[in-house]
């Protein structure tokens, strides 16, 4: 009885998070469809999807911190989905650049990829995140064993690359970059602090089944 209601609750929460994380996409599609994005909808869509990608990466990093510090376990329980959504928005962001800004003009695509430091950083972030998406299944988790969590530490360099990608695009406002940098610093500091704690506690945490 208790088990069933737990499962139901989990299912319900899962649907809730899924809906919330799909909402930004639906919203921007709606705005585009109803012509509410102004004279340059391409740029609006690209910026918006990129912003959500980095926000969801940060949210993924929040999962374990929230569990450890605030005993809020809901993010950790759904970390796989949150992480996959982050990757999904990164891919949508890239697709929007290629389609709406560059019109799939191969010469422009190649030039952007080879000449622009911020684009190279963004692509590097995507390259690091892709294997994490691929190995996010239970099967891969089992197959890789302890190496799985080592591999998934790639989210740290990926997030930092994404942040740098955004910082290099700043023209005049530093507000968003400051907020994201602050949050990422906070989350990384918490991890450094945690790692200094006794090894025993750390290994206990690691052995807990990831749900």
């Amino acid at each position, binding site marked *: 009885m208790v088990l069933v209601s737990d499962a139901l609750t989990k299912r319900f929460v899962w649907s809730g998070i899924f809906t919330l994380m799909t909402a930004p996409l639906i919203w921007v599609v709606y705005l585009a469809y109803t012509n509410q994005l102004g004279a*340059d909808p391409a740029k609006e869509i690209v910026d918006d999807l990129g912003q959500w990608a980095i926000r969801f990466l940060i949210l993924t990093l929040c999962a374990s911190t929230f569990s450890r510090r605030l005993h809020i376990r809901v993010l950790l329980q759904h970390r796989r989905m949150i992480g996959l959504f982050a990757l999904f928005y990164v891919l949508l962001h890239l697709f929007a650049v290629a*389609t709406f800004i*560059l*019109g799939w003009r191969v010469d422009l695509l190649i*030039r952007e990829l080879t000449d*622009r430091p911020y684009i190279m950083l963004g692509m590097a972030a995507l390259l690091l995140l892709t294997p994490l998406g691929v190995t996010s299944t239970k099967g891969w988790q089992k197959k890789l064993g302890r190496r799985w969590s080592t591999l998934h530490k790639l989210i740290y360099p990926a997030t930092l690359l994404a942040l740098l990608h955004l910082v290099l695009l*700043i023209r005049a406002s530093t507000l968003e970059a400051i907020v994201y940098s602050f949050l990422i610093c906070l989350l990384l500091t918490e991890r450094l602090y945690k790692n200094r704690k006794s090894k025993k506690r750390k290994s206990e945490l690691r052995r807990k089944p990831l749900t």
Partner: protein
Amino acid sequence: MLIGKPSKILSSEITPESVYLSRRSLLKGLGVVAGAASMPAYALTQPQSSDLPLYPGPDWLRPKLDSAKTTWTVNEELTPYDSVITYNNFYEFGLNKEDPYERAQNFKTDPWQVEIAGEVERPGVYNLEDLLAKVDIEERIYRFRCVEAWSMVIPWLGFSLASLIKQLNPTSKAKYIEFVTLEDPEQMPGQRSLFSTIDWPYREGLRMDEAMHPLTMLAVGVYGQAMPPQNGAPLRLVVPWKYGFKSIKSVVQIRFRETMPQNTWRLTASQEYGFYANVNPNVDHPRWSQATERRLPSSLFNPRIIETTMFNGYEEVAPLYAGMDLSKWY
């Protein structure tokens, strides 16, 4: 890599004034036949039907606008009125493109005073109305290329900067001209932002020969009416062969100088923005390419990517820069 050579604007693309004027007389004729008494006889470019506000402007300006004639045009599709007045970089009102439209509607632009200063015969503070008393307003349809690699085609109303400079009689020491935008944090929320990297007020400058070039204009209107506040009312510069940031808005000071003035974007990031800022497809911005541009409004699945042309297609200004290395003087 295959990067298309900038295509030249054919002289055949530029509509001769006589043809343009005859088109207008045809329109005028049609107007009479149709009995459309409300249609103005001069038939300047008018806004397409739009739900957005119109900007008739102050009483003293209206007759000047109404008697304007079209003197420059390009054979390219105009950017629609709605895009021109809602998509603006005017950081004094915020960093998003729609911020100026949303936040500038109560910006007071009449009465307006402009200080004429520096190496000039009669420095002083002038009412805009008096400053413009002797100039004739023209309509000029110019391409407008932003440093952010988007572009528009805009029907400005204004006059040659040269005609004003001649009235003001600068001294022989005047080698440059500097422009300053209003600084008024009460009215301009962007100037109150803590996260802006810009040192207000916004300032820009031109070399004297650039300022005297017949293409360089001071604009007081757009689309057959007064300048909307978000587009830089009541007085802004338009230099069509330079990136848009040179075309400073809401000017309150014009100073004639012996030395090269600073300009805001060069002060903010000098490795990215120079003094000259001529449109140049061969000199990339350090962070993005300037070889192509997107003509706005953009359509999602068919982005209107066009090749950027040297001096934005205004090749007649090339002699101004003879012998200069434009990759150094960007």
